[in-house]
């Protein structure tokens, strides 16, 4: 299709450009005008980080073909602040600590601006609705709400402008809520993430990913793709000069599939071309002949004799088994008044950092290969890359680009090897930006666990024995799995003094998407089961669940399940602090349905539940809107 002529105004400046007709407004602004403040998070209008004003109306610019913006007035996040002076709202975000990784923040700032333009007196509920189309994965939204309310109050004169300024600190800087030093660059869109970076002569990479969960690659022919106009090179495992086997605890992963694919989404070949469009077209020209292998998708089935085997070095598919044996659990159970058993299951989840994986690789003048990417671990990634590339380690350089959310998901190395190879082979800078869908299928998830729980207790609530048998689905590669098993086993029985403990945490290879590092790393799953189980035990014992925890809590000098001695133990302090703040009314679980009187529910420190149609009712009586705003303030003071 021929190029189209686009005329529009962006941030007050008129532009006329010829561009490809498939561009979205977001591409036009980011790639043609180099205004990279607004980001792409999902490309599907779900996350909101690309939100811009089009003729004064908030739009998700990833959904808008640029031709639809012909003659329109566009305002991006760069257009909000005049002459380096941040807006009141942007300063409020800074003051309130509303930005963390910052990737969602340009869109949040745009949505919040739209909300307060629509109603300068918007109450908290209306603010929440105004931000409802924008996802933030870091902040839990609380400080963002606080920032918008602060800005609203300053704009309305309810608070002085000095409310936006940094507090003066007396005494130690340690313990002071010093405003985040990187926040101005995040609220203004000035901070450049990997996908915002460009270099002269830069090429673009795209990756062919496996459609098969388990298959032998009988033939791989990249010749047609490699000779396409605009294609610089096509990489396969044959291009890896060093040891093509890496990992965190177990070296089991190739840079690109080597003869076999073990999960849907595994990289097979990488095309490096003049632009992403050509690279994607070339992917379609790569010919792969798969011979399907039997696959296994359930961790317990994968442990059975005769199950498909994923890695020769790990027959039975068990890649890690962490054991803890303390005391004599069978005796503990025999001496118990009550034995409670249950099975718990936790699911795989996606990290869903707002910034999809991206990176830029190039050769420094001295030949050092440099990879700039949102890596959570440049130290280890460099170790692995030096081995993969077969280079002295000081000729491999990793620079962390600003990380748009990680949560462990950017700790397990995934694509940096391909990028480095591409830069070395082409001697040009190469950029690779994942789509959201690609991030979903290719990147590691949280390990799903199945936990068989057995706990023995005395009538007075003392736990005498805990046994946890945990099976985790590690997916196709070990990644951080062995470490996750360690933490699950060590911490799983909880912060309780238990004389007899038996823990088994077993990580199993399957043909599912690999599981890897994720925030709370095995402790989330194992401690979930313990804390849910204690509630069940409290009910059976007729005890208050906090009392059951007090009875068993580790105290100063406690011996842990791995038989280490602790120093100071703050558990009881946290229990008392939470119980006091929440006005905990003691009682055994399941009180509500027994019709007990509850003085504890619905306090000022809870939010109001959402009720369908509630705002429609309020809109018809506008006086109420003002009323609820002041009501809200009364609650806060």
């Amino acid at each position, binding site marked *: 299709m021929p190029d189209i002529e686009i005329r529009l105004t962006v941030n007050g400046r008129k532009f006329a450009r010829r561009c490809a007709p498939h561009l979205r407004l977001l591409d036009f602004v980011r790639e043609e005008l180099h205004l990279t403040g607004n980001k792409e998070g999902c490309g599907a209008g779900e996350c909101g980080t690309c939100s811009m004003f089009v003729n004064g109306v908030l739009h998700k610019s990833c959904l808008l073909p640029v031709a639809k913006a012909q003659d329109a007035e566009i305002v991006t996040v760069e257009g909000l602040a005049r002459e380096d002076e941040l807006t009141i709202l942007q300063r409020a975000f800074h003051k309130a600590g509303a930005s963390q990784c910052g990737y969602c923040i340009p869109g949040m700032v745009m949505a919040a601006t739209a909300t307060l333009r629509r109603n300068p007196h918007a109450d908290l509920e209306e603010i929440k609705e105004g931000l409802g189309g924008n996802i933030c994965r870091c902040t839990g939204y609380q400080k963002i709400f606080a920032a918008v309310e602060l800005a609203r109050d300053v704009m309305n004169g309810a608070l002085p402008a000095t409310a936006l300024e940094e507090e003066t600190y007396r005494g130690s800087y340690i313990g002071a809520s010093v405003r985040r030093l990187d926040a101005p660059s995040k609220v203004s869109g000035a901070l450049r993430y990997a996908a915002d970076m460009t270099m002269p002569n830069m090429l673009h990479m795209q990756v062919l990913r496996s459609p098969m969960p388990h298959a032998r690659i009988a033939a791989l022919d990249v010749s047609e793709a490699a000779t396409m106009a605009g294609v610089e090179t096509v990489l396969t495992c044959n291009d890896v000069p060093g040891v093509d086997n890496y990992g965190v605890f177990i070296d089991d992963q190739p840079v690109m599939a080597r003869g076999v694919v073990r999960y849907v989404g595994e990289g097979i070949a990488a095309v490096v071309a003049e632009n992403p469009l050509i690279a994607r077209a070339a992917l379609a020209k790569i010919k792969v002949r798969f011979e399907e292998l039997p696959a296994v998708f359930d961790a317990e089935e994968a442990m059975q004799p005769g199950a498909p085997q994923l890695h020769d070095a790990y027959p039975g598919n068990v890649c890690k088994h962490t054991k803890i044996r303390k005391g004599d659990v069978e005796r503990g159970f025999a001496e118990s008044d009550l034995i409670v058993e249950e099975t718990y299951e936790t699911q795989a989840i996606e990290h869903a950092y707002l910034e999809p994986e991206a990176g830029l690789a190039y050769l420094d003048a001295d030949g050092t290969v440099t990879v700039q990417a949102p890596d959570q671990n440049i130290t280890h990634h460099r170790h692995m890359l030096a081995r993969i590339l077969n280079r002295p380690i000081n000729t491999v350089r990793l620079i962390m680009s600003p990380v748009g959310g990680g949560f462990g998901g950017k700790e397990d190395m995934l694509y940096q090897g391909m990028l480095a190879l591409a830069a070395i082979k082409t001697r040009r800078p190469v950029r690779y930006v994942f789509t959201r869908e690609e991030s979903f299928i290719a990147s590691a998830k949280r390990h799903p666990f199945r936990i068989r729980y057995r706990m023995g207790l005395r009538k007075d609530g003392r736990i005498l024995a805990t046994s946890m048998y945990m099976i985790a689905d590690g997916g196709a590669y070990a990644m951080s799995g062995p470490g996750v098993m360690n933490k699950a086993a060590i911490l799983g029985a909880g912060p309780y003094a238990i004389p007899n403990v038996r823990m088994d945490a077993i990580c199993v290879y399957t043909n599912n998407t690999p599981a890897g590092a994720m925030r709370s790393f095995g402790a989330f799953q194992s401690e979930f089961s313990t804390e849910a189980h204690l509630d069940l035990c409290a009910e059976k014992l007729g005890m208050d669940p906090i009392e059951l925890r007090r009875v068993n809590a580790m105290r100063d000098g406690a011996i842990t399940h791995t038989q280490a001695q602790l120093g*100071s133990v703050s558990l009881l302090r946290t229990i008392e602090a939470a119980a006091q703040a929440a006005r905990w009314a003691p009682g055994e679980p399941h009180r509500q349905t027994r019709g007990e009187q509850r003085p504890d529910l619905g306090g000022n420190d809870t939010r109001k539940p959402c009720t369908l149609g509630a705002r429609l009712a309020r809109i018809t009586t506008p006086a109420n809107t003002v009323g609820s705003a002041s009501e809200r303030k009364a609650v806060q003071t």
Partner: protein
Amino acid sequence: MKRRGRGVACCWYGIARTAAVDRAGAWVELDDGGTVKVTTGVTEIGEGILTTLCQIAAEEMGVRPKDVTLGDNDTARAPEAAHAGATRQTYIIGNAVASACRDARDKFIKEMAQHWNVPGELIDTRAGEVWVRGRDLRMSMAEAVDVLKKQHGIVIVGSGSYTSLHTPLDPETGRGEPWQSYVFGTQIIEVEVDTDTGEVQVLGVWAAHDVGRAVNPQGVEGQIEGAVVMALGQALMEDFTLKDGRTTTPGFAKYILPTSLDVPQVNSIIIEDRDPKTPLGVKGIGEPAMVPTAPAIINAIYDAVGVRITRLPATPERVLEALRAKRANEADIAL
């Protein structure tokens, strides 16, 4: 019908890498204008570690946080500080930066003592100034740097590193000391369950967490609030599902995340049980804050409507199914 309930859950967590060597290094220079240049391979992933380290460096060197410039995360330029994970950065890298600053400050004090011809013990630095206690001798850090560089030819640089003690685990019994420092926490959560739709709304969270020492309380709150909401997602809605190895939730339209309308009011209570084993007394918060939320929600659902969800997430479908099973069971008992 809508019913409310409350649940409680506790957590504990080890700080830094598990049963393995953990370490970080940092370099410090007292630079022109009385500023401080800190270089360390730290990984800011949004938690605010850069600000935290600037506060630590400012406090240790006697300048203001805005006087600190941080060079970070380039393997060719900065000393190793390893990864953003294991709730380790404030703990390992914070203490490494503190120790590098102490090294630089000791050298600075020694040189100033010589310059002023006073005992070093009498010299103080704070907020960009250096002075001698009980004497009329003082100058700005900017002047002091100038004097040391131009009159004495001295550039003040320091370095430091930090590691935490551990022993490996016995492969058969698990016996060992995986960490030297632990944190603890408790969360209480209030929910409302709609017995007609199975929908669970989380209305209030009271989260009390020991962090050792809160370098930046606003940042600590931010970590707790973000962790609670991420765990709320796993407890109630998020589910990466596969069918024969192919995902059925390939994007945000199918993979449901908490939005501004799903989140509770989070009330954070920061407990400081300083860690005597480290120079700063700090521990960490990033991961532990996520641990108690899901079980506290599940326990609150039970308190509200009497059904135990043992399989995450507690979607409306699963809650309804459990309510149906409970009613059927009660009807059986009644008969």
